[in-house]
């Protein structure tokens, strides 16, 4: 399954790119995170503390146990600071 994965704010900076396409068989967002962590130290650093991260699945805020099946876009970012 092909997914677009986006990174924002310091997650983007730590990983060093704003988006990438990933081929994965992950069942949940948490599985995908595990996969990414195993890739390279910069991913391990970005995903070191999940409590400091938020995730959106197809542009809706979601939990880390959300299923990845039939999803086209997943975004990782720190807690929002708008307004």
């Amino acid at each position, binding site marked *: 399954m092909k997914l677009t994965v986006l990174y*924002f*704010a310091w997650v983007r900076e730590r990983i060093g790119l704003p988006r990438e396409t990933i081929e994965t068989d992950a069942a949940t967002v948490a599985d995908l995170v595990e996969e990414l962590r195993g890739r390279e130290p910069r991913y391990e650093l970005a995903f070191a503390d999940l409590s400091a991260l938020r995730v959106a699945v197809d*542009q809706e805020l979601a939990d880390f146990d959300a299923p990845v099946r039939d999803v086209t876009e997943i975004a990782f*970012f720190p807690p929002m600071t*708008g*307004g």
Partner: protein
Amino acid sequence: MAVRVQQEDFDFGAEADAFAEGRADAGAVVTFTGLVRDRPDGGLREMEIEHYPAMTERAIAAIEAEAVSRWNLVDSLILHRYGRLRPGARIMMVATAAPHRADAFAAAEFLMDYLKSRAPFWKKEVTDAGAEWVAAQAEDEAALGRW
């Protein structure tokens, strides 16, 4: 009801005026404007606001729809900028119009609390010493609990 997300500056006075103009059905108009606050030492060079374009407008529209379902509003406006802003620059505004002031105030505060913590914007402060992402405040997350 309107949502705008833009890089360009906006004319707060003109927006506020157009929003409030001749609302014989409203009675109460509340606006909130967020400005780039300098650091206490005056050392802020600029604030960079990053956002998630594909998600931003729909996230804000969902927040607005929630406000409309909770309070008796005749109109609302949400405007948020992104990009690089100087101290004192306008970041965003919300406006609410209602028959009664309690609804206009509550809806504006609700919109602000949710925009702060649930709309995909991130702020970075740039000073001479470097750049730092603004950390989310526990009190901002806590503020959601009152609604």
